């Protein structure tokens, strides 16, 4: 995060992604839908995935949209419009729930369980090359 703040322009994909993740912490704890603020577990895991993926990808790291689910898990969505494809990384609220990654291109879609940074990197590179 220090690297992002000190050397990256404020509009770079990694800076935007990190800012969006941090912004989640500023939300109310709950809303009408459920838990709104991310759990510590989800936040730490999402940050680790993003920072480690950026360490390898550098400027190829694409910008993600960040949100929380109703339990305080974090959902990171990487989208591409042409061709329309998406990678979603879900970091659950609790440590006893596994993270997973969903990817979709046209009618092809699947879920990767037991996600590692390596798996995230594979699918982000896939998104970049689609």
């Amino acid at each position, binding site marked *: 995060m220090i690297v992002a703040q000190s050397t990256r322009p404020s509009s770079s994909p990694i800076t935007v992604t990190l800012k*969006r993740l941090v912004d*989640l912490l500023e939300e109310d704890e709950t*809303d*009408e*839908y*459920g838990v*709104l603020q991310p759990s510590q577990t989800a936040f730490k895991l999402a940050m680790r995935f993003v920072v480690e993926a950026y360490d390898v990808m550098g400027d190829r790291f694409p*910008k993600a*949209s*960040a*949100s*929380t*689910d*109703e339990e305080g898990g974090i*959902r990171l*969505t990487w*989208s591409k*419009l042409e061709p*329309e494809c*998406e990678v*979603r990384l879900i970091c659950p609220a609790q440590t006893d729930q596994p993270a*997973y990654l*969903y990817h*979709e291109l046209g009618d092809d*879609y*699947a*879920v990767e369980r037991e996600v590692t940074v390596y798996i995230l990197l594979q699918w982000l590179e896939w998104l970049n090359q689609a």
Partner: protein
Amino acid sequence: MRQFDPLPDDATVYRALLRKQWINEDTGKVKADAYFLRANEPGLSVNLASVCSPKQCADLFRKCYGVASLEVGDVRQIGLDVQQDSVNHANLLGLPYREDRLAEAERLAGLLAKQSQVVWQPG
């Protein structure tokens, strides 16, 4: 409980976007996040456009960051259904729980998001 006739395919329903994060900041499009079933939720809550304006739909909630419209026929084309249960309300039925069929839940949420048009946002 009162029974209602099946909604026609050309009926429109509104989904209240209760979180600003449900709208992609970069594209302005609705994200899959808006279309997941929570535990013990039989269907997704929607309102009927025939009796409820987008603003009236939004006003049903404490905070609403947008209203998305869906065509019932489009929803049926992906194997789901919309069933009316009160004068102005319906449930979007057939979505799997993430706990049961994770990939399908993600897929269908994404398809519903693609079908969605944001028809109202707070000024």
